[in-house]
């Protein structure tokens, strides 16, 4: 391949290098190639993704109220305003609560289901999953592909006070007891309209939609564990619980921490679920979250500077969460 006189863009002298090195003087056609192949995607990315993000940080320091209004630089005033606002504090508190509960519940459930499917088979002979494993996997994964809006609307139906699936199911035993002579009022709760239940009801909907996805993710990770590891632990007399938590879990720790980060990111967003199930942030703002309040502040009240500040705080929380989780899972590895 050294004698290629016809091509100007000869590959680098190092034949083992996986990539071609662009020489000092690339040809005109190579320049055009780069301009098109790298330039166009980067242009789109910078204009529509990077620049809006950077602008958000700047706007958060201004009193900007729209195109015609003036954007005076007001330093950290917006940040003072939002932290003095009880609704914003409530929204942020809800986001933080979701950030703890959603990953914990979803990932625990997903892990248990994944373990049952993969190493739930007989405890002797080769490691095998439970019968019908693939059917369970295919079924539970499905909600992941549904649009979040659909999940929101679906669960708004389910939680509806009259004609809803949940009250209907709960009333089945009530009806049975009443036929036997008991006198219980049928349940007619508006689950999303009750301060006590609304957030929990929304959490249940999100968990429902995502457990299958993480289950499949964990199943793939567990299958990648060398079978000798599990067999050796079994020979040492490890039962299923110990196998799951002391052998399997440490092996797939990286997947788990990635899952925690993903779930954390979505728990700090939640815009779709909240705005579909409790459109104005719920009774007494019981289900308000930052993203929905930000949307209202920006597009219903035109306080764009203030809204940007809300977003910046949440984005910083998001990054901090990701760094903490990834760092925590790494430091264990070193020990």
């Amino acid at each position: 391949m050294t004698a290629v006189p016809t091509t100007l863009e000869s590959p680098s002298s190092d034949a083992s290098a996986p990539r071609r090195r662009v020489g000092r003087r690339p040809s005109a056609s190579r320049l055009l190639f780069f301009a098109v192949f790298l330039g166009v995607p980067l242009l789109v990315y910078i204009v529509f993704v990077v620049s809006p993000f950077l602008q958000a940080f700047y706007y958060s320091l201004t009193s900007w109220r729209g195109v015609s209004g003036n954007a005076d630089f007001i330093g950290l005033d917006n940040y003072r305003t939002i932290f003095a606002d009880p609704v914003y504090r409530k929204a942020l508190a809800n986001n933080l609560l979701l950030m703890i509960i959603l990953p914990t519940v979803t990932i625990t459930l997903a892990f248990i289901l994944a373990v049952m499917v993969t190493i739930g088979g007989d405890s002797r002979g080769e490691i095998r999953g439970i019968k019908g494993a693939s059917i369970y996997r295919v079924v539970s994964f499905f909600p992941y592909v549904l649009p979040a809006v659909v999940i929101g609307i679906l669960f708004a139906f389910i939680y509806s006070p009259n004609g809803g699936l949940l009250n209907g199911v709960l009333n089945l035993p009530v009806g049975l007891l009443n036929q036997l002579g008991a006198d219980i009022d049928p349940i007619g709760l508006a689950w999303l309209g009750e301060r006590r239940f609304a957030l929990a009801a929304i959490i249940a909907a999100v968990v429902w939609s995502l457990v299958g996805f993480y289950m499949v993710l964990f199943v793939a990770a567990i299958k990648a564990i060398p079978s000798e590891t599990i067999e050796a632990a079994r020979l040492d007399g490890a039962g299923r619980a110990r196998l799951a938590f002391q052998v399997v879990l440490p092996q797939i720790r990286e997947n788990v921490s990635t899952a925690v980060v993903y779930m954390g990111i979505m728990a700090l967003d939640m815009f779709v679920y909240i705005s579909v199930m409790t459109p104005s942030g719920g009774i007494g703002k019981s289900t308000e979250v930052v993203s929905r309040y930000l949307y209202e502040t920006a597009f219903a009240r035109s306080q764009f500077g203030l809204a940007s500040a809300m977003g910046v705080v949440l984005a910083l929380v998001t990054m901090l969460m990701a760094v903490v989780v990834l760092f925590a899972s790494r430091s264990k590895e070193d020990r």
Partner: protein
Amino acid sequence: MSTTTDTRAETGTQVTPREHPRSRGDRAFSTIAHIVLIAWALVVILPLLWTFYSSFKTSGEILLSPFAPPSSLNLDNFVTAWNEAGIGRFFFNTIIVVGGALVLVMLLGAMCAYVLARFEFPGRRLIYYGMIAGLTFPIFLAVVPLFFVLQNMGLRGTYLGLILAYVGFALPFTVFFLYAFFRQLPEEVSEAAAIDGAGDFRTFFQIMLPLAAPGLMSVTIFNFLGLWNQYLLPVVLNTDGDKYVLAQGLKSLQAQQGYESDWGAMFASVTITILPVMIVYAIFQRQLQGGLGPSTNK
């Protein structure tokens, strides 16, 4: 758990390695596991089944007897949803926007990933990590300025504006996965192409792109689902009711109708929205789940 171990230890000597009877612990565990898994499967399936068959019932039927199967296979709700509620139009808008964005993001993403994966040049790492960082940017932070970026370009409320925004936000994921794919393709292929006198453009379109087809396939599926389900971007950027995508249309239907009115049409609208993703899922279920493995593209 200790009982399981004990049982196994006791009977362990009596059984031949191949045809061992299942121990009591095994049987108990497997029964419990099946019960749990079946329960979860039912929790997943029942609401979907309920939505599906409710879309054939009248609103009265739904409210009076929410569980009863439909009295007849009535398609009225679907007709109402498609024509009067505007689901037909929303569907058409979604096809244009998602289709356009999908083609564009796959093309641009493959081009960018290819250059980053196969060429060494100054700034390569910076661009790659700048791209990957986009995976972690929260969209809600960007929407306010993005609204004005599109406004200033005269693209707000147009299909093109929405398509470009979709493309921008789908690029990091696309580049990230395709990069790994292009890295694995053997160097000899492109060298052979160069010897044959193929330029960079021809090498990419006629040789590398077909080789990367399996990777392109699974990334396309994930992008299709992601874009079809997109909500925040259209809600902010696409405020013209005639250009609503399905997700927006559904939300506004729900908001207009409140809880009491046309439930049947609402269920039908939801069913219509679910059908395309359900079909994609049924066909590509294997690629979707395979794409999640730790070694992605083997």
